[in-house]
């Protein structure tokens, strides 16, 4: 299958990691996967092309406005690939009625200069096969396709047993794991969850170890957000200082897992909008590839549906501190949950599975069809 990914890739943001996995998995599975556009020097492992001949499916991976190519590339891809061969995955939930949750949203004109109806019309104009990375899309004409996935071959330390994993984790030197907690991600619509997490972490921080937040805008509310009156990028520098949280600059996508592995624990948060819609994100799966103990700060029903029942042991619930203390005391059950979850993800959310789902979408045609994750 010749698959063209139509999106904007940047080594610092959004889905670049998943896009790499699509290209790599395609190569391994005998598919020809490329990103539409000219090669980018800072992403040497991605295949790019502007050759539209023989494309079986063009997957428009849409998060922000600039994921649609600029003219004239835009019209070349729309004219060059027939509508039946186009699938659009709406990764940021734009193809919905306007949703407001806490400070989060799926449409905000002052942020991207476009209104909700403009998003809907653009998406509907590209394809009749619109999918979203959730098991339960809100609209009947939207299909389920998680897009992101788990790459077993990309697991940093694929332990053979929970005992081995627990031993390695417990005995890791300070140089190998200098942090108790590492969260890699930008401060975008996650502050409330992060604040609650840190408040529960604080009482146990001496036992757990130092926490680090890696990404943009944790140190202070950015000037542009203040000027535009955009909330949800809040922070509390005094609290972060009080808890001794280390703030680090954002890293490239290919440094994320290595950095997560520098901590014993890595929480997985979904922004309120995605939480509400049951969306999957890069970090939903990628955290399980890192050498860290994931803490699933997600609804239990979502965890069970996506990760399998075994992953429920990785949901701290309302007592993050107790979860950490218990994991430090007896890590093996927790690592068993991690290994079980990795196995579940490998069975249900591998990129081989995603390719099968994509092919099913193509066969089924428009509407909410195959490819349910």
């Amino acid at each position, binding site marked *: 299958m010749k698959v063209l990914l139509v999106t904007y890739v940047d080594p610092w943001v959004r889905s670049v990691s998943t896009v790499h996995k699509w290209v790599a998995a395609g190569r391994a599975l005998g598919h020809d996967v490329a990103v539409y556009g000219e090669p980018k020097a800072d992403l040497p492992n991605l295949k790019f092309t502007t050759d539209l001949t023989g494309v079986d499916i063009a997957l428009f991976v849409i998060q922000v*406005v*600039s994921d*649609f190519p*600029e*003219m*004239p590339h*835009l*019209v*070349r891809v*729309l*004219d060059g690939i027939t*509508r039946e061969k186009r699938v659009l995955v709406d990764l940021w939930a734009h193809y919905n009625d306007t949703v407001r949750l806490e400070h989060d949203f799926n449409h905000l004109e002052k942020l991207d*200069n*476009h209104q909700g*109806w*403009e*998003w809907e*019309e*653009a998406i*509907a*104009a*590209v394809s009749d096969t619109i999918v979203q990375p959730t098991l339960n899309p809100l609209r009947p004409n939207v299909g389920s396709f998680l897009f992101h996935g788990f790459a077993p071959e990309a697991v940093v330390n694929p332990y053979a047993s929970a005992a081995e994993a627990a031993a390695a984790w417990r005995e890791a030197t300070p140089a190998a794991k200098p942090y108790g907690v590492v969260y890699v991600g930008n401060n975008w619509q996650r502050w409330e969850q992060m604040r609650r997490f840190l408040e529960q972490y604080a009482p146990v921080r001496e036992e757990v170890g130092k926490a680090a937040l890696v990404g943009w805008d944790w140190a202070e509310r950015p000037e542009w957000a203040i000027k535009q009156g955009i909330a949800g990028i809040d922070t509390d520098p005094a609290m972060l200082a009080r808890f001794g949280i280390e703030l680090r600059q954002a890293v490239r996508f290919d440094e994320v897992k290595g950095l997560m592995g520098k901590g014993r624990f890595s929480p997985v948060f979904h922004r309120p909008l995605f939480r509400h819609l049951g969306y999957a994100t890069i970090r939903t799966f990628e955290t399980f590839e890192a050498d860290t103990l994931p803490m699933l700060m997600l609804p239990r029903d979502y965890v069970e549906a996506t990760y399998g029942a075994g992953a429920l042991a990785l949901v701290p619930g309302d007592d993050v501190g107790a979860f950490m203390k218990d994991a430090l005391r007896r890590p093996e059950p927790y690592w068993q949950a991690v290994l079980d979850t990795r196995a579940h993800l490998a069975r249900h959310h591998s990129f081989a599975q995603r390719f099968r789902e994509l092919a099913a979408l193509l066969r089924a045609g428009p509407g909410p069809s195959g490819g349910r994750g």
Partner: protein
Amino acid sequence: MNILIVNEYAANAGNTHAITNYMRVGAELGHNIAIYGPPQPDVVDGWYLPPEMQHARFSTDLKAFDRIVFFFESKLRHVKRLPEVAMLGTFPRKHRYILDADGRFNPYIVVDGYDRSHKDEAEQALWRGYYEALADKIIKPTIARDKDPRVTTLPFYGFDPSEVIKPEHVPPKKYDILHVGHNWYRWKDMSEEILPALEQIRGEIAGDIGFLGLWWDGVPEWAHAMGLEPAYRVDTERFRKLRIKVEPPVNYTEVVHAMSTGRINIFTQRPYLAHVKHLTLRYFEEFCADTIPLLMLSNDLAEAVYGPAGRELTLPGRAAEKILDALRRPDYYRGLVEDVRKYMLANHSFRHRVEELVTALSD
């Protein structure tokens, strides 16, 4: 036919004004013509728009239209990305058209040694590549034939007799000779034709000479750094010696009124656009004013646009003689102006324009 126009909407721009005439006349002929976008205010920058502009139709309902016409003027990228996606996903290529409103779909050429079609050949390639990607059919507002089978030529702009200034609105004459327009690639015409003529006959002209527009009082400071000095070149000393009064530009809605303050109006066009016989709104606007337009156009082009009377209104090679003659025999020249208006009514009405456009957009 349902035609959606995508342009750089500006209430005080000539193209937008022309499009509203298409809407008005098109509706009379059973066609639905609208500009893409939400409804726009009737007041822009404190100016009330003329009645026809207040009735401009806007729409964002792409499915209500079966043809889309992209206007390109100074900028290639003037449509927001998401509407652009929606437009391109909705209208198949065979129903997309480009109106080349600024003469950009041409080879790179330099005219008169200083005006040019594009900044350089790279820019020309960029524009051409963009156009060719977007549509197969390009409409040029020119009366010249084009060998390229993708190109349809039609004048696009037109003459609306209701826009001829009413006698009761004609202002007193302030100038014997007037030029209304900015100094933008005009210096060759001025330095080689108009100013020598005025220098020759200045003593015989009792009244004032006026230039209304930007950059007649000096080359803007930033023009040198941008390599645009030739576009704005002017000799203020020659202007001073000729006692030319340089006045600020007038608002778009005031152009016809302002031109009517001159007994004679000199019409110039930037050399590149004249070379490709690119018609602009001003070609028709000149004859809506209460004045005698004298044209810096070739005889053949003047006749092609204005009919036989147009030949008698041209200046090249005889500017001094023509200006004096027009000042001395205004009634004769007013007769020529009337002849031109009749010719334009017969050949350049917006009814003609709409029919030509619909024909061009038909499969």
